């Protein structure tokens, strides 16, 4: 027949049969294929249904954190020191942008973006996680926002956000106490994790870095709220499903008196130094000064590179909190405490006097008094008022280092005071044990009796922070009842309005004889009336006790010290401790002026200004003047 090929067909009908067989075959294949599909639908829609419902919900619902308002910080009189304000920022999420440079170039055609903004952005990028959105411009005005909104479609991964910014309305005032906030970095993240606060910090991108902002971070932060929103595939919120409002951070009310703080800071002029003023009966800090200061506002939206470099490059090192981190030999301000130790230990009586030839020989070494020919016959009162070194060389020798170290340790010298700001230095309370810890080589570890002698006048290894000196002065002023220095008076819970007072109880009550305390106080009053502090406190309408001191920066072996001839940075540090009114002390201070020369010359006038304002409300005129005619000491 016609078909000689593989399937020769005998007839038209058998060809049709073959065709119909193939139709049937195809129908079978189709049916099977559809059964496979339906099997797949059953698998997805019944077996895996719950899983896919979850996936769909995860797709659809997003928890958007609502960061809380950070707590406000006010001084003891309610003056605002740190607050928040709302402003628009232009932010880029680098991970969502292909060509960052091109995007920023494009943005700069509609919104002004300066070179410094770009540099800051680059710095932020290096420091942050890539999925974060980072500000390229802050504080946009309404026009900027409108212009961007009109061009938004051109810039995927770029958005305008309303953010709360921290503001320190008084600028650099009290900056060392307040500290500042800045973007969260890796160290902060570890901190947040350690405190189990990760969930609460979702949505927060700033954190306290120093000062109170850091130490009270978890009080100030507040509770993050959440909004459950339905989002579309582009991540845009379509509608809100539920909302848990955030709870604002707790407010801090400080013991600080910002007016006093301002007067104290201004009193320093452009000199470097520190001042700690506290209330002896509570330990509350009235002023905490470290000069030079810095403007914490610079840090809030990411510090500009040049500002940061300027702060760091400055030889004056404004970022260092000298009141807490600077450890200085106390010089003669050590003497009242030495005298008290002598009375308490029975090594001296107030009237016991020595004949001062102007020097003290020990082990073949001569320890000089700064007054040539000596002070003559010196009892305890005179030793403090005139700051006689020889008296204390002898006393130190009689007491021995162990007794000195034990007494000074009791009043908190050489230990962290536990002030509510982090990063405090320990200082150095010299003792044979300390030397063993401090040095490695055995020959250096040995304590020599000769080393005790200069300890007696506050030199040698002695090194204390201004806050320690202030705490010790306050302990003396308060008759041995010691409080932990602190800056926060109370925390106000924003939810309940409840106030939590900080530290109303004394940490230690030293059992000194009142008679001994009175002897020392009387001598310190004498300092300000007829001694080294008399010029600074001339005409004061209150009685005050004080003690000047000078910490040697540059060792002048035996030769005369002429302040004017030395370069400024080689001049000695000036110190002054004081309390007033002497009968019932309301304020105790420790003042340090770096390279200020004598304590009477530059530190005591600052204390006078502080007292005048705090006790009498007197406003000073300009910074405290250095007293060129101040009586020399040591």
């Amino acid at each position, binding site marked *: 027949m016609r078909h000689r090929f593989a399937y020769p067909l005998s007839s038209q009908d058998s060809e049709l049969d073959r065709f119909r067989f193939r*139709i049937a075959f195809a129908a079978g294949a189709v049916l099977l294929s559809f059964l496979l*599909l*339906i099997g797949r639908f059953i698998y997805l*829609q019944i077996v895996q249904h719950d899983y896919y419902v979850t996936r769909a919900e995860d797709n659809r619902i997003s928890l958007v954190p609502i960061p809380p308002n950070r707590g406000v910080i006010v001084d003891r009189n309610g003056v605002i020191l740190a607050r928040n304000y709302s402003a628009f920022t232009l932010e880029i999420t680098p991970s969502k942008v292909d060509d960052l440079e091109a995007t920023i170039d494009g943005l700069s055609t509609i919104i002004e973006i300066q070179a410094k903004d770009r540099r800051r952005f680059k710095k932020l990028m290096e420091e942050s996680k890539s999925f974060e959105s980072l500000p390229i411009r802050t504080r946009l005005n309404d026009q900027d926002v409108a212009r961007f909104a009109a061009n938004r479609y051109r810039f995927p991964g770029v958005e305008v956000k309303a953010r709360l910014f921290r503001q320190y309305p008084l600028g650099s005032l009290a900056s060392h106490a307040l500290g500042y906030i800045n973007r969260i970095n890796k160290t902060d993240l570890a901190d947040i994790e350690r405190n189990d606060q990760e969930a609460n910090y979702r949505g927060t991108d700033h954190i306290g870095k120093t000062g109170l902002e850091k130490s009270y971070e978890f009080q100030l932060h507040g509770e993050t709220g959440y909004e459950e929103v339905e989002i579309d595939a*582009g991540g845009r919120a379509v509608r809100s499903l539920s909302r848990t409002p955030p709870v604002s951070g707790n407010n801090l009310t400080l013991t600080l008196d910002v007016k006093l703080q301002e007067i104290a800071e201004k009193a320093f002029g452009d000199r470097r130094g520190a001042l700690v003023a506290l209330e002896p009966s509570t330990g509350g800090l009235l002023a905490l000064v470290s000069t030079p200061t810095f403007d914490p506002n610079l840090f809030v939206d990411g510090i500009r590179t040049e500002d940061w470099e300027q702060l760091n490059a400055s030889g004056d090192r404004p970022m260092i909190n000298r009141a807490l981190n600077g450890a200085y030999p106390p010089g003669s301000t050590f003497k009242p405490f030495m005298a008290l130790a002598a009375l308490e230990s029975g090594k001296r009586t107030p009237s016991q006097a020595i004949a001062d030839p102007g020097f003290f020989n020990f082990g073949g070494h001569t320890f000089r008094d700064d007054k040539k020919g000596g002070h003559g016959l010196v009892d305890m009162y005179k030793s403090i008022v005139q700051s006689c070194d020889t008296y204390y060389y002898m006393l130190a020798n009689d007491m021995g280092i162990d007794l000195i170290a034990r007494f000074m340790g009791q009043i908190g010298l050489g230990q962290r005071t536990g002030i509510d700001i982090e990063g405090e230095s320990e200082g150095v309370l010299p003792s044979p044990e300390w030397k063993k810890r401090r040095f490695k080589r055995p020959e250096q570890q040995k304590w020599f009796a000769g080393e005790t002698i200069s300890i007696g006048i506050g030199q040698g290894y002695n090194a204390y922070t201004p806050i320690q000196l202030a705490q010790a002065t306050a302990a003396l002023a308060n008759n041995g009842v010691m409080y932990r220095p602190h800056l926060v008076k109370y925390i106000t819970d924003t939810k309940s309005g409840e106030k939590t007072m900080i530290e109303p109880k004394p940490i230690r009550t030293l059992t000194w004889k009142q008679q001994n305390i009175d002897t020392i106080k009387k001598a310190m009053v004498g300092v300000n009336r007829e001694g080294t502090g008399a010029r600074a406190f001339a005409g004061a309408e209150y009685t005050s006790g004080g003690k000047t001191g000078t910490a040697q920066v540059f060792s002048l072996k035996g030769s005369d010290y002429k302040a004017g001839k030395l370069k400024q940075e080689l001049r000695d540090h000036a110190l002054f401790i004081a309390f007033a009114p002497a009968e019932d002390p309301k304020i105790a201070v420790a003042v340090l002026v770096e390279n200020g020369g004598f304590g009477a010359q530059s530190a005591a006038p600052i204390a006078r200004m502080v007292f005048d304002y705090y006790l009498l409300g007197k406003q000073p005129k300009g910074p405290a003047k250095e007293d060129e005619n101040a009586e020399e000491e040591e």
Partner: protein
Amino acid sequence: MEILYRIRSRLVSNLDMPLLGITALLMLAGLATVFSATYDANNRALSQLVNMAVGLAVMWGVAQFPPQKLMRFAVPLYVVGVILLVLVFLVGIKVNGARRWLSLGFMRIQPSEILKIAMPLMLAWYFQKYEAALKLRHYCVAGLLLIVPFGLIAKQPDLGTAILVGAAGFYVIFFAGLPWKVIIGMITAGAGAAPFVWTVLHDYQRKRILTLIDPSTDPLGSGYHIIQSTIAIGSGGIFGKGWLEGTQTHLEFIPERHTDFIFAVFSEERGLIGCTILAILYLLLIARGLMITANASTLFARVLGGSITLSFFTYAFVNMGMVSGILPVVGVPLPFMSYGGTALVTLFLGLGILMSIQSHRMLVKK
């Protein structure tokens, strides 16, 4: 009355009511789904209705022609189609890395679409011509006629259309009696050649196959389509979320939701029940097509009808398979459901041919 009756009878006499009925149900489902997929932003339901009207008119027109007359179009249509494909290859417009379009100045056309009909028509014509003495070389020539346009379309690259055109052609050859031995041999050879084919595939095509095996390897890239569409289907459950209630759909997680991925929208909102009904409708459509084909009187009508019917199957199966994640993502629309005029007109053209075969079977037999 008499006139009216005659007009009516003239209008519908060449139409196959079962085929039309099934298609009407599919179109209704399609319109509702297109509406749901697009009403948020740019509603396409009305414009799809216009497409359907045009398609129905084309179908009616084609149904009036007896199959023999259709044969006349086979060669010219095929030749023009292939020439246009060559032109696309040479001077086509590149969109998204693929050269599929030809600009005629006032409009753009996609010549590969023509081949969806031209290919089975041409091969059916060819087999009809040599009906009396089909030999192996005729199948080889048919294979050659198939492979040239297939290659040109695959090269564009447009794997989806290439598969549809290739399948349509293959079905013709299959129904024309391609020996089983050859079929089995080809399948074996195909399996053996798979590693070689892999090296020829474009990167994006390979990626699609890889993401089919494990979509989670690239959740935001090429795996995204499959992940989102399977989430849509799975979360639909037995009863579905309800019309206009699909979250995956309305929050725009499903890409191309009114075109190639419309099945994800449908199954999210209609659930397993809806999916099963839809599958049954396609099965009925195919069954009716195969019935018509089985009763056709000429080889031309048989192989053409069979090919068109199985093409409907290919469309539906490949589309639902890819959307539900068992086949790679290729650009194949869901018949009578997906939005798009060209594809719809091509489908109705096929329906018209099937109806023509059905209504003219007696004529031919005589």
